[in-house]
């Protein structure tokens, strides 16, 4: 009898730590943060962090979750996070935070490694948080904007970023741990998606606008949405998107191809002790828009269109690589990583000097476009 | 404070449920080992729960190893 009592007591006692009841926090005692914007005040040198959190009071079943933004200051980022408690009743809970927006000034002046270090080190943040850069004066402006489709700006931006390379291929997205790994690896530089505001009268909505280019730990420039597409081709990260080109080879773009599949084979060849990169893009597309009225398509005409499209894409990629080499000198295409992984001995020779090596790197681009069908219409 | 209470409670429970019912059938050697381990453990845990800083055996081991391999630790 007493043994049963002891067993029951033991089971009960052992059950206590199972629920983590030492520091129980109810759902209504948490402020669930979804988006974080990092800015820095020039005069005081303090970090200004804005948090977009879900406003559980105002959220209704019909209208969906609503969000609120609060700002707080602190000498370091964690200081600012804790200082936010001075304004809210419940402690901020970061487990659902999905987006970090870094202000342009912060990215230009501060060491991004310090920012990434905090978010990686603190256990509450998921390592899959998306990191982005704001092109506006302050990152907080992005969080203050109106969301279009969903009701919370951060969640909308995350959805945009995640689906982008399947739909528009106009930007890259990086999770926190991916960004951290890239920063720490030699032979590759960080890119982050860039976000801007579109102002219409009093309202402003946010839009993803290309890529922010980093060199070492600081922001050095941006690539436009069109250039970002060529970047994604070079990086082998295109899963969808659209290519426009003039069907006659010159003039205005009037034909549109929808990409269904794209693969870039990246390889390195040793040319007299120097690396030479070769990119072979092969994509399968649908012809989705053709503006000039005429007769039916023939395979020859399709082949010609394929050639023009391939030429334009190839030239675009080469031009972008040259631009990045001369203007930024930052190996955002991970060519250094490519050399490292495929030809380690050559990497040993060039790695100390990779910055200047990258600027002179010879890159050959070959593009092959396969038009699989012309959608519903057979005639043009 | 809470932790001290937990430590005291657990040791009390151990003595009540583990020692008293069975101690009659033990040799003096058994009892001696039991009490020595109990008291050493209790002393250390009690002091730790009161936030008293106790000497760290790791420091001793590191010092010993450092005699052989000075660059470690």
């Amino acid at each position, binding site marked *: 009898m007493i043994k049963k009592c002891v067993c029951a007591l*033991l089971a009960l*006692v*052992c059950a*206590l*730590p199972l629920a*983590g009841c*030492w*520091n129980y926090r109810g759902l209504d005692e948490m402020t669930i943060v979804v988006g974080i914007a990092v800015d820095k005040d020039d005069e005081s040198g303090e970090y200004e962090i804005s948090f977009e959190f879900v406003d559980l009071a105002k959220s209704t079943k019909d209208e969906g979750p609503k969000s609120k933004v609060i700002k707080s200051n602190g000498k370091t980022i964690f200081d600012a996070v804790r200082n936010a408690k001075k304004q809210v009743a419940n402690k901020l809970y970061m487990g659902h935070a999905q987006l970090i927006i870094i202000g342009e000034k912060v990215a230009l002046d501060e060491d991004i490694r310090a920012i990434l270090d905090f978010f*990686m080190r603190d*256990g509450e943040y998921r*390592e*899959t948080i998306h990191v982005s850069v704001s092109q506006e004066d302050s990152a907080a402006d992005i969080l203050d904007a109106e969301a279009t489709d969903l009701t919370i700006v951060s969640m909308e931006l995350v959805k945009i970023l995640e689906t982008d390379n399947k739909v528009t291929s106009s930007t890259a997205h990086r*999770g926190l*741990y*991916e960004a*951290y*790994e890239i920063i*720490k*690896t030699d032979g590759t530089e960080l890119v982050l998606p860039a976000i801007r505001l579109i102002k219409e009268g009093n309202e402003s909505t946010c839009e993803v606008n290309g890529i922010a280019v980093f060199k070492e730990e600081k922001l050095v420039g941006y690539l436009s949405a069109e250039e970002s597409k060529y970047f994604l081709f070079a990086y082998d990260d295109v899963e969808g998107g659209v290519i426009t080109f003039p069907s006659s080879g010159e003039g205005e773009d009037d034909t549109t191809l929808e990409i269904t599949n794209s693969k870039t084979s990246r390889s390195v060849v040793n040319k007299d002790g120097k690396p030479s990169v070769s990119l072979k893009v092969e994509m399968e597309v649908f012809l989705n828009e053709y503006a000039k009225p005429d007769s039916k398509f023939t395979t020859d005409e399709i082949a010609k269109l394929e050639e023009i499209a391939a030429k334009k894409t190839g030239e675009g990629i080469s031009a972008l690589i040259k631009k990045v080499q001369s203007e930024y000198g930052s190996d955002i295409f991970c060519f250094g990583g490519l050399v*490292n*992984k*495929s030809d*380690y001995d050559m*990497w040993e020779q060039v790695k100390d000097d990779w910055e200047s090596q990258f600027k002179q790197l010879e890159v050959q681009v070959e593009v092959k476009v396969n038009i699989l069908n012309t959608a519903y219409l057979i005639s043009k | 404070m809470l*932790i001290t209470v*937990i*430590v005291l409670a*657990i*040791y009390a429970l*151990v003595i009540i449920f*583990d020692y008293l019912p*069975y101690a009659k059938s*033990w*040799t003096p*050697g*058994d009892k*001696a*080992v*039991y009490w020595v*381990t*109990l008291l*050493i*453990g*209790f002393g*250390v*845990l009690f002091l*730790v729960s009161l936030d008293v800083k*106790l*000497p*760290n*055996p*790791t420091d001793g*081991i*590191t010092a*010993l*190893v450092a005699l*052989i*391999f000075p660059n*470690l*630790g």
Partner: protein
Amino acid sequence: MKKEKLTARQTITLLTMFFFGSTGVLGVNTDVGQDSWLAFLMAAAIAFPFMLMYSRLCRLYPDKSFFELAESLLGKVGGKIVVALLTWYCLHLCSLVMRNFSEYIQVCTMPETPQLPVMLFMMLGVVYLVKSGVETMGKWSVLMLPLIVAVVILTVLFALNRMDFSRLLPIARHDLGSMANSAYYSVMFPYLEIIVFVCAFSGSSETEKPYKPYIAAFFVATALMLTITLRDTMILGAHVLDALNFPSYVAVKIIQIGEVISRIEGSISMNYILSGIAKCSVCLLAAAKGIAYLFGLREHKQFLFPLGLLVVALSTIVFDNLIQMFEFIQVYNVYSVPFSIIIPVLIWILAEFKHRKESKAQTPANTQA
């Protein structure tokens, strides 16, 4: 006194969980970045002869426990010294493992909970397991190991969309010196800790064919830890892997399939606690047997509760902070050599000599008869 035995299958499962114990939590040594798995394989190759050595010891003297063997080879005084040293090692190791786990729980899962209650409750379970006897430990491990393996396999399957094989490249480009250094860590911790298992269970496992269980456990544990290392490297990348305190936990945090399969890191916490309990219970059993042997007591089960609490007490004072815990691994490499290499090899060599003498003494008698 009835001799409690472990069947061969139970030996395999318990020994596998013992090996997996704290290496799953802390991860294998990651100094060589993307080649950590290769260094780990090297470690396995180096540790394999030791497994054979221990199996041979069991084969030579199947009825004697390791302590009795030490006494018969080294005499009463020498035997007692060896047993005392090994008992201290088992106690210390138990407290180190306990501390590993409570630090893991504090950093990763429950940051606001103080470590002492966590350790106390875990030790309660461990003591109860050891008190229930050797067969219970064996049967429990037979049930738990498939669970652990299933969780590992599931995490690998779910992680496929986040794994990138190119993170393992370039393969084997670190120099042999740093690979050997990294391998040495894995040899000492966990493989050569098998001495603790031998102390606890020698003389009480089915020892007619000791080779099969030990070697089978060795391979299963190696496969498990290799899988985990590869999975972590392919998800995280070499630099993040090296930068993290607990890389497996973060790697599983990243796993996400759609909206449903995410945040599954709780399952590997369960894995670790189970294997931690297995490792602690084996260490505690070895320590208890050692103390019983030293003081000439016939039963080791009486003082398990105070001993367990003593281990908890030791684990609270053994490290000041997490950083010291990781730094200690380097010191441990040297500190454990006498216990896990010198003493066992010495005993084995002396046992071989004695066995040879005995078999020579027998053959003249046989030919005469």
